[in-house]
């Protein structure tokens, strides 16, 4: 099954390069996504398909990430077809191929139980997503792509050094150098502490860059602001989840090695610092796509905080990976529609979205309430669960700061979002001929439905999946 999920999208990417028709090429996206989603469901129902090799294993944590990425990609792929219809004059050859290759590489990252292979896959996702940011071929998008490539490559290079440090800590511990996740986990108590700590810091900085943890987040507003909305959704829910998985891996090894206090302190600090930075920059944001980037940064901070708190907050953290991914689908895709209707991202021009594009405007507003943790949406459950965990673990100061930051973000984001959806449509944009189409509206509705569902009720299989992941992360399975 691993080969289907990894190689099929890659093969489709190759096919996309060779199809001459600009109109039909994007159809490969939903095809690959459907096969991927079917394969994901199959492998979740039949765990015995989950281990192919020693270094390609789908563990419980990987399952949660795989589910998130697969669902997000599935609905986004239909949106992408609709989006590319509006851009028919531009060749989508590389856009389609890179988007398909991304799906294969992120699946490889999720399955790999060799941390070196995982690095190769995540670096691969960095490379194939760079041309996606550059799709609009403007000066601004070149600038965003350049910053993304440079900052991302350096960050991910540090993660490679961290990976090597980890192997070296095993060598120093007398086990022989290895990058196999199971070996490292088993030998964790004997790993050289100094090198393990150094490795953890490099993992945090390196993969943290990819997630967008402050202060390595600088590429993110630029990239999310200039990339098409659908790419933003894939980044905010897919690329970041893959990088977070790498942090989960090293955290689990540190936990098994008895280095939990060291790792936790750093993670809690990074999480709160990231949330603070996001809150500050969100407050005065006039560009609503950049605002969404800061929202993504904030939620990476929440995930990092939840991981740092450990056992009491892990359930909420794993659930938040899923709810954040789905809500980001709602926000970025509806923001893409609004952007197209107004041909602007600035709240000086974009006003009255509820009148101009009623469905996207309403979904954007609902997505805002969802992502800021209002009931009855999914992120409310996960954020509440993390908050509960923070207090249970006795981190009262962190919990209080978390609450204050949630409030700050709610207000900062609210000002921008309300300006976008309310008011009158400025006269000069009322004539723009964009109308919502089925393909660009239905996927957003689907994400919204999932977000509401997760807020009201967590299905039993998902509950089991999350419980297993928490047990696995706590080295209790």
């Amino acid at each position, binding site marked *: 099954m691993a080969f289907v999920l990894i190689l099929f999208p890659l093969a489709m990417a190759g096919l996309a390069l060779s199809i001459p028709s600009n109109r039909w090429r994007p159809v490969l996206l939903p095809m690959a996504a459907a096969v991927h989603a079917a394969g994901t469901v199959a492998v979740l129902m039949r765990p015995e398909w989950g281990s192919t090799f020693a*270094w390609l294993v789908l563990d419980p944590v990987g399952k949660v990430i795989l589910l998130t990425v697969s669902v997000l990609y599935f609905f986004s792929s239909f949106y992408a077809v609709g989006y590319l219809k509006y851009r028919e004059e531009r060749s989508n050859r590389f856009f389609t191929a890179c988007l398909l290759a991304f799906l294969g590489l992120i699946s490889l990252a999720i399955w790999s139980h*060799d941390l*070196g*292979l995982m*690095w*190769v896959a995540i*670096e*691969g996702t*960095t*490379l194939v997503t*760079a*041309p996606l940011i*550059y799709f609009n071929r403007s*000066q*601004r998008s*070149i*600038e*965003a*792509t*350049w*910053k993304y*490539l*440079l900052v991302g*490559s*350096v960050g991910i*290079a540090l993660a*490679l*050094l961290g990976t*090597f*440090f980890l*192997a*070296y800590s*095993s*060598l*120093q511990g007398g086990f*022989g*150098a*290895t*990058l196999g996740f199971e070996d490292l986990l088993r030998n964790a108590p004997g790993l050289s502490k*100094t090198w393990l700590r150094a490795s953890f810091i490099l993992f945090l900085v390196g993969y943290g860059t990819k997630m967008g943890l402050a202060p390595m987040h600088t590429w993110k*507003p*630029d990239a999310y*602001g*200039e990339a098409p909305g659908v790419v933003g959704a894939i980044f905010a829910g897919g690329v970041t989840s893959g990088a977070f998985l790498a942090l989960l891996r090293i955290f689990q090894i540190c936990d098994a090695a008895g280095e939990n206090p060291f790792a936790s302190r750093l993670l809690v600090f990074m999480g709160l610092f990231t949330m603070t930075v996001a809150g500050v*920059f969100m407050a*005065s944001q006039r560009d609503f796509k950049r605002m969404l980037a800061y929202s993504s940064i904030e939620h990476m901070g929440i995930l990092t905080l939840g991981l740092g708190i450990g056992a009491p907050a892990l359930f909420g953290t794993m659930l938040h990976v899923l709810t954040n991914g789905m809500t980001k689908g709602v926000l970025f895709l509806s923001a893409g529609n609004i952007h197209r209707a107004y041909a602007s991202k600035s709240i000086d021009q974009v006003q009255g979205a509820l009148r101009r594009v009623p469905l996207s405007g309403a979904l954007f507003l609902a997505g805002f309430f969802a992502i800021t943790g209002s009931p009855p949406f999914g992120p409310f459950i996960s954020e509440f669960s993390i908050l509960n965990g923070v207090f249970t673990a006795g981190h009262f100061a962190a919990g209080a700061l978390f609450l204050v930051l949630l409030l700050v973000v709610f207000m900062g984001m609210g000002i921008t979002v309300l300006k976008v959806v309310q008011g009158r449509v400025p006269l000069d944009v009322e004539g723009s001929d964009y109308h919502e189409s089925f393909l660009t509206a239905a996927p957003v509705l689907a994400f919204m439905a999932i977000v509401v569902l997760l807020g009201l009720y967590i299905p039993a299989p998902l509950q089991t999946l999350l419980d297993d992941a928490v047990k696995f992360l706590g080295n209790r399975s």
Partner: protein
Amino acid sequence: MNDVLNALFVLILTLNLFALGNGRILSVIRIVAAQGVLLGILPLLMHEHLTFPEVLSSAAAISLKGIVIPGIMAKALRDAQMKREVEPLVGLLPSTIIGALVTALAFLVFSRVDPASRSDASLIIPTSITTVLAGFILLTTRFKALSQVLGYLVLENGIYIFSLLLVEAIPLVVEMGILLDLLVSVFIVSIITNHINRAFSSLDTRRLASLKE
């Protein structure tokens, strides 16, 4: 054998300083290429019995780091029609001195860390860390896009040196994957620099400043 290895490490360290002190981008490309070739030779000297995968990965490293990637860079440079780095943030001489200080510091710190189980490894860790830091200095103090890419390549070389300690831990698939990623990234970057040059009529990254808060 150890003497030859040590001589190579010293050569690599010297090349770092040359890269830091040279203002002609083409010369820096050649320096980085020479460093790449040396890196590819290292694993051949470290093992008494060479196996096929080791020779293969060495050959791949030499051809990529020494020939293909510098070739791509040199072509990007020709397309951009420019020769010199503009006045860097930190001058050429000061950055060379900083590089030398960093080298001394790295050796001082890592001579205290307990040496590895292998005798030939004593120079690997400090050389690796120094090269990574030299790459960082290049990356952060130069303004031309291509110079920054060269800094990234030096940084990557430093990480590659560290991997020499871990030959048995890194499967051939992973090693090839790392090299492939490097090649693709340089390829994509050379395309992007070409577009930057066309859109901004310059490779000065200070012009990339329209996106900010």
